């Protein structure tokens, strides 16, 4: 029993410094995003610093654009020695909402030196929002189209008129027997 306790304690002693050092090594970072417009592209400039405002180099920024059912992955951006990075994408990208806003999100994820963090910038799409029109499937509409009402009424109305004609003839058969 004593040996087991000693073994567990030894393990804990070995593990604790690892955790402590790992926590201590990672720093918090701040991503600053700025928008720059060109003729054919949207350009986003990134500035990554730590909390002491010291630029952080060689950081991979995962850039996404918000879409209806999730995040659309754009290209990655890499900070240079001054902690700056840049990413250009086509200005034909439609907006994410009715106001034609494009939500660009930059994330630092699973970095060896920095804790996970993210930032967002909202830019305007050059493409106006196109409200999707419901398909013109008239038979599904709340009001039946006139051609359907007419076709249906003529078809089945015609059959029922024939039935009544035959019932009339049956009555004549009865009268003929009197």
């Amino acid at each position, binding site marked *: 029993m004593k040996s087991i306790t000693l073994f567990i304690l030894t393990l804990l002693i070995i593990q604790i410094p690892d955790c402590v050092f790992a926590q201590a090594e990672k720093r918090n970072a701040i991503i600053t995003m700025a928008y720059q417009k060109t003729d054919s592209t949207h350009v986003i400039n990134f500035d990554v610093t730590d909390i002491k405002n010291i630029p952080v180099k060689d950081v991979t920024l995962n850039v996404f654009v918000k879409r209806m059912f999730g995040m659309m992955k754009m290209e990655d951006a890499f900070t240079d020695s001054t902690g700056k990075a840049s990413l250009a994408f086509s200005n034909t990208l439609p907006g994410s909402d009715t106001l034609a806003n494009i939500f660009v999100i930059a994330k630092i994820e699973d970095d060896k030196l920095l804790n996970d963090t993210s930032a967002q910038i909202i830019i305007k799409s050059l493409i106006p929002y196109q409200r999707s029109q419901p398909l013109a499937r008239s*038979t*599904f*509409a709340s009001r*039946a*189209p006139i051609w*359907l*009402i007419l076709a*249906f009424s003529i*078809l*089945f109305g015609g*059959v*029922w008129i*024939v*039935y009544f*004609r*035959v*019932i009339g*003839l*049956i*009555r*004549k*058969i*009865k009268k*003929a*027997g*009197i």
Partner: protein
Amino acid sequence: MHFKTENNTAASINLEMESDVLKSITYTSAKGKLWIALLLLIFIAGIIAYGIQLKNGLIVTSMRNYVSWGLYISMFIFFIGISHVGALMSSILRLTGAEWRFPITRMAEAITFSSLLFAGIMPILDMGRPDRILFLFTHGRIQSPILWDIIAIATYFVGSTIYLYLPMIPDIAMLRDKLNHASRWRKKLYRILSVGWKGTEVQKQLLEKCMNIMTAIILPVAITVHTVVAWLLAMTLRTGWNSTVLGPYFVSAAIMSGAAAVLIAMAVFRKAYHLEKYITIVHFKNLSLLLFVLTLIYAYFNLNEYGVPAYKMERAESEYLNELFYGAHAPLYWSVQILGLLVPLILLAFKRIRNSIGWIVFVSSLIVIGAMVKRYIIVIPTMLHPFVPIQNAPIGYGSYFPSVVEWLVTLGALAGFILVYTLFSKLFPIITLWETSDAIKDKGAEIVGVDSRVSSPVSI
């Protein structure tokens, strides 16, 4: 029972045939009574089971959110299917002037009547709140296939009842005049339904006119009904149902299963009512040849229905087809395709098989059972394959096997259908006597397909 012979209201009916057919109405053997009692028992068991379902709700069935159409709707499609035989076969044979049709047309038309009666009930059984069926009439939307279905079935039921009734008038008049010792309600029924038929020339002309009109109108109505039933499925965007051939596919299956059902009915009535002289091997041969052609047409539509999407294997469709071909439903699917289609097709190709009543009944039974199971295969696997996958659903929602209540209700409906058919044959001649007699007189027994011993009709 004693028959009158002095009255001339039923035109020239062959006395021997009249006597033989009337025996089936006036006399019920012990076996016949037992048969009716058995059917009644199963029917009552079905009513009790439905009472349980009505009291406790659809929770007593295996139907849940995904499979909301189960055994009941499968049977609804089956009943609609076999109901086609009366209108289609009788009408087509009448239009094409096939003289051998006379002894079997009423059997076919009576199948239509009794199966439509229960086809109309099945969707109501499927409803959790059957009282809301009235909403279809008060709040129905003309653009909904459900409303098309209701109107089409009602139209077909009324039409096929008139079509069944018209050639019965002279025969009912004969019953009115000859069944002296029939019960009062029977006499009253025959008196009302015979509409004062005396067989005058004017009456005959009027009846002929009515029958010509109905023969022409019932065919498109019958095709419309089963097409609309197919549209009930095909108008929804679901795997397996999203098909443009579903309408004609259903119609072809309907005529095939209906023809097989008539062949079985012919064999049963022939034996039970001793009608060997009037329903002969000629009728079996002709009808089984027709059944062979109908099965070929159905096989062609089967190839289109499954072969074309299987070649493309579109994403959602492939999930459904793989389930049918290799998955949980594969044993049922292949059993139906092999035993209900391929084997009958091969067997019916042989003349020796088509010359044997026993073999024809065997093949027809395979086709009818196959048609019944096929409706299940058409409805259930599709319901289990929605476009949005079934995830995190409560236990039992992702699969379906009918509960005891569903089996009992369905068996009750099936027994009810056979019971109505049997009782019909106990009330009215199952062979159209006056038409058959007239045809024998005009064309001869050989053309009509009856035994040559009844080749000398006696005018009364």
